[in-house]
């Protein structure tokens, strides 16, 4: 592997960074892997469809199997695109939260955005009454967005609360605790709702909590994609400020950063990404925490200029891989995403971290 070099080209007047070369090499590799995994995800499903057909279908060529067209374009393609958006989005949101709180364990849901979304969904799914009388009207009025709308409302509510509080609270640690408290409170409410619900409704809610990329329609993507892209755009422009935040708020301010504005933008970016991903795909764990660490370890850097794009691609790759693994090929069985991300993700991150010399540990 590439070792950190102690020799650096130091000319008399300037310092040339070795990093950009290493970074470009990695990005090229990751881009290549991304394309491979994207096609892989399109190839896997309950039906066996050869890669040659997939390439043809994607290029718009007619084949002798029109049903496969429908499956690849309407089921697998939406799934893959959703995975890419969610994977990238959650990974970036995780990076933002880890830097903002200077805590390597922070994840995108640390502010309780996730819990707000869950509460919205729980209210929508669970509080429809035993006879489900309202239900019939629901499936027509909420339309395609349905549950996702409820989740977005819930997430937005918590986001608003967090913003309100962050104005008067100086320390980000206090914000962290508040996020945890919001999380606890909403979890308690959801448990209460579950307690009074009938089994079928509980089942429906549980299925939502498993997480899934496959439930998003093209119509929903028309809403989800722009929103996620806005979130990604906002977050990507924060590279310089995030680097400054690594030094702490005092240093950051002394470097000319408007802390209030930066806080707002970071919270906004992370909340849009985490809230939207959860709204459409359910709560998906692990990606947000792990990908930033993997990126840091691969690129050997804490510099957000390099981390942001790296995390973007790594997140997409990880989500696509997880999606591939949810489908036991040939069978109808589909495992929940959350099971896969935790099962495979945890040992992988352990390996990444322990691979380094002992003592370097985990840091932001």
């Amino acid at each position, binding site marked *: 592997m590439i070792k950190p070099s102690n020799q650096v080209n130091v000319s008399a007047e300037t310092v040339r960074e070795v990093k950009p070369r290493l970074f470009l090499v990695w990005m090229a590799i990751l881009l290549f892997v991304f394309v491979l995994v994207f096609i892989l995800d399109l190839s896997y*499903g*309950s*039906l066996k469809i050869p890669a040659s057909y997939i390439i043809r279908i994607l290029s718009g060529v007619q084949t002798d199997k029109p*049903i496969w067209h*429908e*499956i690849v374009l*309407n*089921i*697998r393609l*939406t799934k893959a695109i959703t995975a890419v958006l969610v994977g990238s989005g959650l990974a970036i949101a995780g990076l933002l939260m880890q830097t903002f709180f200077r805590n390597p364990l922070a994840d995108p849901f640390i502010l309780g955005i996730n819990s707000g979304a869950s509460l919205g969904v729980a209210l929508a799914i669970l509080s*429809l009454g*035993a*006879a*489900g*009388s*309202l*239900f*019939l*009207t629901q*499936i*027509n*009025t*909420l*339309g*395609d*967005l*349905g*549950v996702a*709308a409820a989740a*977005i409302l819930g997430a937005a509510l918590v986001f608003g609360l967090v913003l309100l509080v962050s104005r008067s609270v100086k320390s980000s640690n206090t914000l962290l605790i508040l996020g945890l408290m919001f999380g606890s409170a909403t979890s308690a409410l959801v448990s209460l709702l579950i307690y009074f619900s*009938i089994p*079928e*409704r509980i*089942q*429906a809610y*549980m*299925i939502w909590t498993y997480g*899934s990329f*496959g*439930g*998003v*329609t*093209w*119509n*929903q993507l*028309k*809403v989800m994609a*722009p*929103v996620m892209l*806005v979130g990604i755009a*906002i977050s990507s422009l924060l590279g310089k400020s995030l680097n400054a935040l690594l030094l702490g708020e005092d240093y950051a301010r002394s470097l000319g950063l*408007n802390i209030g*504005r930066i806080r*707002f*933008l970071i919270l*906004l970016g992370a909340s*849009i990404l985490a809230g939207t991903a959860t709204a459409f795909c359910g709560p998906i764990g692990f990606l947000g925490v792990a990908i930033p660490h993997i990126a840091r370890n691969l690129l050997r850097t804490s510099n957000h200029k390099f981390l942001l794009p790296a995390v973007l691609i790594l997140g997409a790759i990880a989500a696509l891989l997880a999606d591939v693994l949810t489908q036991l090929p040939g069978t*109808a*069985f*589909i495992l929940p995403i959350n099971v896969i991300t935790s099962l495979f993700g945890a040992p992988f991150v352990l390996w990444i971290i322990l691979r380094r010399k002992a003592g370097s540990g985990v840091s932001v």
Partner: protein
Amino acid sequence: MKKSFSALFILSILILSSCQIVTPMAVQNSPGSGLAQAEAATVTTEATVETTLAAPTADVIEKVEIKYAKNFTLEYREGYILLGVKTQDSPTALQYALVPKGTNPTIREKDAVVIQTPIEKIITLSSTYYPMLEQINELGTVVGIDDDTYTYNETIRKAVEAGKVTVVGGDGAGSLLSLEKVIELAPDLLMSPYMNAPIFEDAKLKESKQTLVLNADYLEYSPLGRAEWGKFVAAFYNKEVEASKLFDQLVVRYEEIAKLAAGMGEKPSVLVNTAYQGSWYMPGNESFVAELLNDAGANYLFADSVTGTGASPLAFEVVYEKAKDADFWLNVGFASDIKGLVAEDARYGEFKAVVEGNVYNNNARMNPNGGTDFYEGGVANPDIVLKDLVKIFYPDLLPDYQLFYYSRVN
């Protein structure tokens, strides 16, 4: 700089909200299957006499009436049958317009899902439909099922093994529907129970334009009402009249047995179900189980205390108080013998029914994985279930009859 960021924020909120407003509106214009819109657009107002005559459900043949089932209606329209499905207290109904193939009548109900009959391929997401299909000889149209683990029906299980029937998931109990398999099978419709199952909220399924039919048989609280759904299923094959005749015969049989048990003097007391994690789910006095017990001439111990059509969780002590003296104990869950039953909770050993050996379970017909025919065939054959119950409570009334779905727990 501050201004530009506030602008960006406001802009994002605007985009978010406008997208949310636009998309639901777009969907509201085309509820149900896209097929309905297409049909409504191309239909002409000239309903010819030929069209009317071609419909097998015109005045030429007798009309089917729905007498016991409360959750579906079957109405005759010009050139088509309108099925309506609802739950007991919901205002809106899901409607299905059954149009015979080759005809093109005007469908007055804008929200109805149009289905061409007879259908040839069906995916069933509940095993209660097998007997209903079997009685009209249409079991062979099943191309996909939700799960075969608990299936009792031999034909279906063999077909799955032979690869003729595909398991597609979506039983509403955790296994997710494989949309790919469904699309590949290209069924005429999917039939699913449980109003609240995730399948009815599956936006992806809606997007793929598959036809999903709600079968609410399990929400009926009268045994005959449940069995009457055989007519509902048969309507999709244009065989509702045949099913109706079979049902009439079923009613006759059922009422004969009920009459037998009605005149008996002292009614035996009955307890049902077992405790689970401290709670004992007891069916209400208007529930399916309670009606059966009532028709079988038994005294359901909790008829006064538990009301309604669903099951309520009671504390063990409350049940214990009455249960100790129950003459009979039915539907005892997964225990295969008395020893196993008492092992679940030692207090069961004190029940009079246990001491006297009057514990019966409805798993006499069980598949290797624990699925029982009681929940499959039992729904279509409430007369046999009733016979079983009468045999249990008043063995002398039916001396030659052997228990079918029930067996004594020893």
